[in-house]
């Protein structure tokens, strides 16, 4: 398998074959990231495609100081953010809620049976404004100040959105694990 440096060099020389190699190697990971931010497959598809175009176009700007995958991931996240910002203002998604929130049993929960795809599904089901803040804070590690600048919201809004997102996810996890346990018991 070709080394990453070799692939980068090939891409920089404009060879399509190496671009495809890069795409094949990283697209599954970044498609998962795209889904995490997009909320649906159609939007994730656009994010992934747009991201790889940006990656190829800006490859010479990668200075080899940090992780190449991290650099690409930032492009994917920024692309998702940009699309979200456009969509957010055009459709007033801040007013879109996911409907009735699932009721959960109080008490402790273990995470047995929770797969990555279940977690992804839970994030995708979050309302967009909660999903974005949760992804940026919990997964990417940005601060509330940074998130506020990125999403053009106040820090307070970012904090409250995160809290709300955690709340919803917590309930979803409890319900899921509760169902799993019941299924196993049966």
């Amino acid at each position, binding site marked *: 398998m070709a080394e990453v440096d070799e692939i980068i060099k090939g891409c920089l020389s404009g060879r399509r074959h190496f*671009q495809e190699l890069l*795409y094949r190697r990283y697209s*599954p990971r970044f498609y998962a990231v795209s889904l995490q931010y997009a909320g649906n497959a159609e939007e994730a598809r656009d994010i992934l*495609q747009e991201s790889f175009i940006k990656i190829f176009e800006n490859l*010479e700007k990668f200075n080899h100081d940090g992780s190449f995958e991290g650099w690409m991931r930032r492009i994917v996240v920024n692309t998702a953010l940009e699309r979200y910002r456009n969509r*957010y203002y055009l459709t*007033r998604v*801040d007013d879109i809620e996911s409907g009735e929130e699932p009721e959960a049993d109080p008490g402790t929960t273990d995470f047995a049976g929770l797969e990555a795809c279940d977690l992804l599904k839970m994030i995708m089901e979050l309302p967009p404004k909660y999903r974005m803040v949760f992804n940026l804070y919990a997964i990417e590690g940005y601060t509330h100040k940074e998130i506020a600048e990125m999403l053009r919201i106040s820090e307070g809004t970012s904090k409250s959105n995160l809290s709300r997102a955690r709340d919803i996810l917590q309930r979803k996890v409890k319900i899921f694990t509760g169902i799993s346990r019941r299924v196993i018991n049966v």
Partner: protein
Amino acid sequence: MFNREPDIDVLFRNGLKDFEVLPPSDIWDEMPPIKVTHGRQRIFYAAVAGLALLFSVSAALTALFRNNDNIAANLPQTSFSRARQVKTAGPTLKAEKSTATVLKHEFRTTTENSTVTATAPASASNDQVNDTPALNDQNNNAFATERNSEERVNLAGLFTSHDFGNAGTSIIPVATNETKTKSNRFMIGGSVAPGMSIISDGGHSDTKKLLTSENSMPELSAALSVRYKISSRFSIQTGLGVTSVGQIVKGIDIYSGLSHYYSSKGKFNYVVQTASGQVIGTNTDVRIADESANRVGSVISQAIDPSKLPLSYVNDDLRQRFRYLEVPFIARYKVIDRRVDLNLCGGFSYGYLIENVAFATVNSKDVKVGYTEGINKNSVSSQMGFGMEYNLTKNVTFNFEPVVRYYITPFSSASNAIDRQYSFGIFSGLFYRF
């Protein structure tokens, strides 16, 4: 188990770490071939291409006009009196044969009645030497007379503007164009240029759709320039200018007076999606609406309906204006040096964004709406032009110069925004030589 709230973060972070989902197979197939752009290479190639074009066109035009001069000079002229032609025949012929020497050394000797060169080329042909006695026979040699008339014309063309009246033989400098320009190396002037930009939608379907309801505002440039002549043909130019470009977004209804009824919590109430990027409506006194298309978004709570408020209508066009302060660095080559000079010019220009405003106009008064997000503050462009200079007086020239500009840096950092790739403008103005 999780007792503390942030544990849910860890669950998702770890759970989704390195998680992969195979994307649909057709995504790659639909991806267009992507050219990798090398910034430095692009600038280098643009510079090399510009210079190569400048020199090749210069060389071609110089060769073309030299040929024309030779043809014109070789045409028989009969306007001179035969007696004068005969009288000056011998020396004139000699002078023409050593034209190159005259131009090179800029010296000549004068005699009482005729003009001769001070230095004949060392390689002067035997014909030249032999011609002199034959032509000195003024009464008999008709052939020589005929030939002299041609050659006198040529020489007359070289020396017409100079006074050779000094008696006796002396060596004096000839006031050629080169010596003239030595004392007038600087030029200062101002020029303005209406123009137009050629914009690209970058292949984005959303941008293409947005452009259907937008028009480009005419580009306008004004500049103060200083020019320095390095030689009679080469000069360099710099200065300070302002260039204004913009877009008119149609069908956006703008109302004023919102702040009387609604106190904004944030820095803006509205955003407008345009082909140049998102306009952030920082003027919280205006209400922006778009009834026909879904380009306007609002952060105003849905509990309030601004459309029912008695607001003053401003306009249905939103205008975006971007002004750059520019410093050009231009090299100029004079291809034709006549009363109307023709110049080729090429160089680079650095622009800094000094104004980024979105506004609406009511009764010739601008109402600021906000600004466009993502516009790059710095702009570098290469430019090429072909200019004409008409000498109005000894020190004042009128300049007329069509210029094509290629923008090296992108117009906006927003991925879906338009890109201004080329622009065309016609600079005209006055320059003062000192």
